[in-house]
């Protein structure tokens, strides 16, 4: 086998954006508009990358023409249903204040934010509560945002996975690896914005033998969280679990786009909110109780079906229309091919696997704990609207930040690139070893068995020790036949970093609260009220710290 040597390229810019979803593209657009030189790097292609690849149809927003002049009820509803107690009210307020501006911007760029000429709110809503989810036609959101970024001079570099941040307390850029060619990139930048999305492939999915069957894009592997952690930035509430639910076994988000009633096998609704298909609400029981499907199955009462029987022809067309904007094209095609008629056939739903709800700590200015490092979007869960709003804010603030800042340290860049180069060349040139799949599967089983549903001190200790063994072996034995496999190897390193943080944070939260459970501490500990759990890199692995939630 020939020896692989990576070619190198150095690219200098003002602002580097890592990840080209709604958050990253909006950040790049605003930073470009402020006159900054912007490079956006995406490990796929910004036209169709990430979980919003082929669309979304819900956008949390406060629209004065729809809601009236009082924003407070909407802020309160968002705080209660979305941000929970993990975000200060100032964050939610900024989000809602800005949301209408973003909505108008998107609409003017050609992402239709109105339906039949009106603001349409439906889904993700409980009868009697305020509507917060604006329906929008997001099928082409990514190509449109890409076009807008290019118009503002943003240089988009596709198929490059950023892998390490360059920092010495201050940020100097990042090192990336090409997903197709044998090439390493050093990006020198005065400010960096992380926007790489969520953390998929951390726990086993619905089909363990089919790793890419996932509700969210399996290409989003916590890269931003891992990079931030390894560079010394703070992460927040990584112990908090998040689970989605949707059709069984075709894993896909977007349950609020379905217009039906969730019923047990005897046709009894499993929730109290709707008794017949209603396009305004869908069935919001699965918003507040995503585990309902798993719990019904475990207790022998399942399965639970999404039952659209009784839907009007008009509402059926409405549902299918929105499915095509929510990125459910393949589900719509599959229904047609298998002759599954939602007007007649209830479809089984399931609770999907766990991931972390926590992520990179960033405030309402998009600032992380590290000077010059910004983050937005699902670096810390928020959804499309939060992603685009805080992406926009982070981009604007990064562009202001760079004024008067000295050039990034090329020496630090060189050192960073050398380290990544030697790691990836080792992986590519290793003749014997194990594939990325072996390590990803090993990681998933540790997460499921030791940091999954039953969480306790003894399990966490045993699991963490095994995880470290897997990690050690990964650095010594993982091998890749080509750049495609190499990127998966790097993703596994990132997932291993994220896993370590989760173990540390879960061990620290000795209580049971909301969706977070510890079987050895089955009660809420009021000492932790109004506190957030920070995790960062210490000398011997992750260290944690409790902090007051302010604002």
């Amino acid at each position, binding site marked *: 086998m020939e020896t692989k040597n990576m070619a190198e390229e150095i690219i200098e810019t003002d602002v580097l954006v890592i990840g080209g979803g709604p958050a990253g593209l909006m950040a790049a657009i605003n930073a470009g508009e402020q006159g900054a030189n912007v490079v956006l790097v995406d490990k*796929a292609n910004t036209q*169709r990358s990430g979980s919003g690849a082929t669309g979304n149809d819900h956008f949390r927003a406060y629209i004065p023409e729809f809601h009236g002049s009082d924003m407070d009820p909407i802020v309160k509803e968002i705080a209660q249903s979305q941000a929970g107690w993990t975000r200060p009210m100032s964050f939610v307020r900024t989000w809602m204040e800005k949301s209408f501006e973003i909505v108008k911007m998107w609409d003017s760029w050609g992402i239709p934010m109105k339906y039949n000429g009106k603001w349409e709110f439906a889904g993700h809503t409980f009868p009697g509560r305020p509507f917060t989810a604006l329906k929008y036609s997001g099928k082409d959101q990514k190509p449109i945002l890409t076009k807008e970024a290019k118009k503002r001079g943003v240089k988009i570099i596709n198929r490059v996975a950023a892998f390490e941040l360059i920092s010495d307390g201050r940020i100097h850029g990042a090192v990336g690896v090409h997903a197709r060619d044998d090439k390493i990139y050093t990006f020198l930048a005065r400010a960096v914005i992380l926007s790489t999305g969520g953390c998929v492939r951390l726990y086993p999915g619905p*089909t363990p033998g089919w*790793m890419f069957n996932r509700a969210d894009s399996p290409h989003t592997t916590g890269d931003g969280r891992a990079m931030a952690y390894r560079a010394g930035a703070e992460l927040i509430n990584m112990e908090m679990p998040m689970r989605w639910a949707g059709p069984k076994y075709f894993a896909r988000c977007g349950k609020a786009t379905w217009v039906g009633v969730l019923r047990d096998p005897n046709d009894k609704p499993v929730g109290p909110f709707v008794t017949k298909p209603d396009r305004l609400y869908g069935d919001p029981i699965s918003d507040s109780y995503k585990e309902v499907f798993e719990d019904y199955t475990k207790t022998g009462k399942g399965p639970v079906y999404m039952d659209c029987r009784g839907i009007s022809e008009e509402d059926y067309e409405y549902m299918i229309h929105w499915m095509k904007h929510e*990125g459910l094209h*393949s589900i719509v095609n599959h229904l047609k091919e298998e002759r*599954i008629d939602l007007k007649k056939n209830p*479809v089984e739903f399931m609770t999907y696997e766990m991931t972390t709800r926590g992520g990179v700590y960033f405030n309402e200015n998009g600032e992380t704990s590290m000077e010059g490092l910004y983050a937005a979007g699902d670096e810390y869960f928020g959804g499309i609207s939060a992603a685009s709003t805080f992406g926009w804010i982070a981009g604007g603030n990064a562009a202001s930040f760079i004024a008067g800042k000295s050039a990034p340290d090329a020496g630090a860049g060189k050192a960073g690139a050398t380290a990544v180069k030697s790691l990836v060349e080792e992986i590519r040139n290793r003749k014997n070893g194990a594939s990325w799949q072996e390590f990803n599967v090993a990681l998933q089983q540790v997460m499921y068995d030791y940091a999954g549903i039953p969480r306790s001190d003894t399990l966490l200790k045993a699991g963490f020790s095994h995880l470290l063994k897997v990690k050690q072996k990964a650095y010594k034995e993982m091998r890749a036949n080509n750049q495609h496999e190499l990127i998966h190897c790097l993703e596994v390193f990132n997932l291993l970093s994220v896993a370590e943080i989760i173990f540390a944070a879960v061990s620290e939260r000795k209580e049971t609260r909301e969706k977070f459970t510890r079987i050895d501490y089955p009660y809420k500990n009021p000492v932790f009220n109004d506190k957030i759990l920070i995790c960062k890199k210490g000398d011997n692995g992750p260290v944690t710290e409790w902090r007051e939630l302010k604002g």
Partner: protein
Amino acid sequence: MPPIINEEKCTRCGICVDLCPQDVFFGSEEKKTPQIAYPEECWHCNACVLDCPALGAIRLRTPIPMLLCHR
């Protein structure tokens, strides 16, 4: 396994290769029918079908483990 390309209809424009988020077409060569190197990594986002300029040149097949359960 997904995706499936109809060689007669495919114009070898390379758009699907360019766009696929999972890069299932890794290793494909320009002006040749895309090679499906990593079919098991398809996420069924449907980008290749949506953005293909030649109607019917590409489709996605649902793998058997992903068949919807229904009654």
